[in-house]
Every structure is written in structure tokens, then in C-alpha cells.
């Protein structure tokens, strides 16, 4: 075997080795992303509009799905319970009619608009619509941000 052939085969060998190691690294990386999650589903039925009082914030789905369903005189919308500051969960204070985050004190009106504390933008809203049988359905995979003008989107609320 001459030197040229030796170097050629060495290059082939090391390339195979690098490819196999790269394959293993890819497998390990992929292994860290589970296929099945034991978490609540992203889309769920939330009962009928009549079950929600006018001018009230419902905490019914806060624990399970991480949303508040709010009804005012014209519409029903869903607010995310994730604070827009650093991601904690604010509490609804009925006496003060505001959401207050315990981590750093951000405050939001029942509309989700921020008015105190470090939160840089309003709470996010999720897609909401009526199913065929008239039940409210919430889809958390689609979000609407006020600062982008997305709250005007008819999919972000139900007119009542």
C-alpha cells in the first residue's frame, strides 16, 4: 500500500467514525424530547356560555389548564395565567378587581391589560370558539397579543 492509498483509506475510516459518533449524539439529543406528555391537553371544552356570570373572572380552569375565562357585557375571552414578566402565575383578587403576581408585583386589569409592576405587556389571550353543540372550546395552541393588535381577531373572543 502506498502513502496516497493509506491516507485515502484513513480519511474514509475517520469519516465513518465521525458519522457514527454524530449519529449517537443526534440520538442522545432526540432522546431528551419525549413523544408523550403527561400534561393536560392543549384544547378543551369549557362548558356553556350561561355557566359564566357577566362581569366576572372564572377561576374554574386555572389549576388544570392554566387559563381564566372572563365574561364582560359584550364578550367572553380566555386569559393565560402566565405573567408576561417572568412567567409566574398571578392571583385574581376579586376585591381589588385585578390580577396580582406574587413574584414581582405585576398587576393586570380583568381585561389582561398591565397597569403596575414590571410586566412589559398585557396577558395573552387564547383562541376561543363555540363547538357545534354550543359549548365553549378553548384552543391554547393559538395565542393573541394585545400589543400586536390581535385582540380584534374574531377568533380571540365569543360575542354574547
Amino acid at each position, binding site marked *: 500500500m502506498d502513502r496516497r492509498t493509506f491516507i485515502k483509506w484513513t480519511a474514509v475510516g475517520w469519516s465513518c467514525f465521525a458519522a457514527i459518533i454524530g449519529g449517537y449524539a443526534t440520538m442522545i*439529543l432526540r432522546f*431528551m*424530547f*419525549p413523544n408523550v*406528555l*403527561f*400534561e393536560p391537553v392543549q384544547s378543551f371544552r369549557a362548558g356553556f356560555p350561561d355557566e359564566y356570570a357577566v362581569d366576572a373572572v372564572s377561576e374554574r380552569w386555572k389549576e388544570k389548564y*392554566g387559563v381564566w375565562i372572563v365574561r364582560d357585557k359584550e364578550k367572553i375571552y380566555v386569559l393565560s395565567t402566565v405573567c408576561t414578566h*417572568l*412567567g*409566574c*402565575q398571578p392571583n385574581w383578587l376579586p376585591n381589588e378587581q385585578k390580577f396580582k403576581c*406574587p*413574584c414581582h408585583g405585576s398587576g393586570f386589569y380583568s381585561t389582561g391589560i398591565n397597569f403596575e409592576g414590571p410586566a412589559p405587556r398585557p396577558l395573552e389571550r387564547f383562541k376561543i370558539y363555540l363547538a357545534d353543540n354550543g359549548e365553549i372550546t378553548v384552543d391554547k395552541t393559538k395565542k393573541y397579543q394585545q400589543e400586536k393588535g390581535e385582540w380584534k381577531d374574531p377568533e380571540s373572543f365569543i360575542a354574547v
Partner: protein
Amino acid sequence: MAEAPQQPKKSLWENVQETQLWQSIFRTGVPVTRRQRMMVVLNNVFLHLHPVRLPKHAVKIKYTWCMGGLSFFVFLVLTITGILLMFYYRPTVEYAYGDIVDLGEQVPLGIMREIHRWGAHLMVITVWLHMFRVFMTGSYKPPREFNWVIGVVLLVLTMLLSFTGYLLPWDQLAIWAITVGSNMAGAVPFVGASGPGSALLSIGDVNFIHSASDARFALLGGRFVGEGALLRFYVLHCIGLPFVIMIFMIVHFWRVRKDGGISGPT
């Protein structure tokens, strides 16, 4: 016939030292000469980690504050107490918080977890002070500049061990602190769902980087801090990060020797 010259009577101690058992363990004998003293250090796996000779200034508390050594000592305490805690603590949403309470109220002595916690605080303090000392004495200068880099890696690993251990009590402070902390992973450019550039990695309507496929998701094993995150942080805290930090500590200590021993005043 002349009588054989009488041997002086051997003491029990001398007899013991002559046995094969004793000599197989202690090869150099009583360290009387300089050479024997040196061999005692070189022939013992634990003693040989230290240099045979030290410059005078190296043992001055005023110069080193002993902060590097104390960091390692506290690390050993944390390893031992951490292993003991693993006998009682179960990393599941159902049991984690109750087990932490039990470690204080039901487990004998009730202080093992506090030692681990105080030790963790202490190690962060000693590591920072060690870094401060090394900076103030100029010990990062050539030929020790790469050991400074390894030291920075060790500092980051110490912080990551603190961060992963923070979640394990599974109380409100832990959950929300890790929620806030892990949101940083979600803000990394390109690989974090809420980071800049993540929207670029998409084909048509299909977004490859979203809340169930980004760096934060890999860290937490879920969309929020839950069962998956608790288990992942537990494994990282008890196995993954200690393994990595020990490898870097070996290199760190080795290089102190190879870069000419502990630095001195010039």
C-alpha cells in the same frame, strides 16, 4: 565452638514491623531520612495528590485564605450528605415535598438536609472568595491562564448544581424560581421558542421551534415545571452535574501542580 553472638531481644513493635503483612502495606519504613519522607508521600495514593515539597508562602492563610481547599472540603461534605438524603427523598410530585418535611421532622437527627443546604450556600461563597483571591494575587497570569478558564467552568457548574438542587424541595418558592429561571432557556436565540430568530426556523406554516420542541422543553421534559422537570433536575443534581464537576476538578487540581505549583508573591 564459639557461641553465636547474642541478638538483642526484639520488641513486639519491631516484630510487627517485620511481618510480611506490615511491609506489604507500608513499604518505606519509618520516615527518618529525607528520601524516606519523600517516598512515604509518593507511595500513598492519597498523600501523593499533594506535592512532596511546598514553598513556605503556600501554607500561609494570609496568602491563600485556604478557599480552594475549603471549597473542595465543602464539596465532599455535600457529596456525603447528598448521598444520605437520597435514601429518604423520592423525586415525584406526590412525595417530594412531604419527604423534605420528613427529613426535618421524622428522620433521625433531622439536620442532614440543613447541613446539605448550608453547605451548598457555603460552597458558593467559598468558590467566589477563591476566585477573588486568585484574581487579587494575579494567579491567573501565564502559565496559569487556562486553569483560570477551568475554574470559571467549575464556577458555572457550582451554580448549576445550586439551581438544580433548588427545585427538589418542590415548594412554591422552588417551582416559581425554576419557572422563572428556565424561561431563560426559552429566550435563547434560535433554539428557544420565545427567543429571537426562532420563527425563522420554519417551513411554511410548520414551526420547528415551539413550546414543545425548544431548549426549555428539553430542560424541563414538558411545557411547564412539572413531574418531568422534577425528575430531570433530580438526575442532573445527583448524577449528571457531580460527574462533570468531578472531571473538571481533577483537571483543575492536576494543572495547579503542572503549572508550577501554587503561585507565589513575586
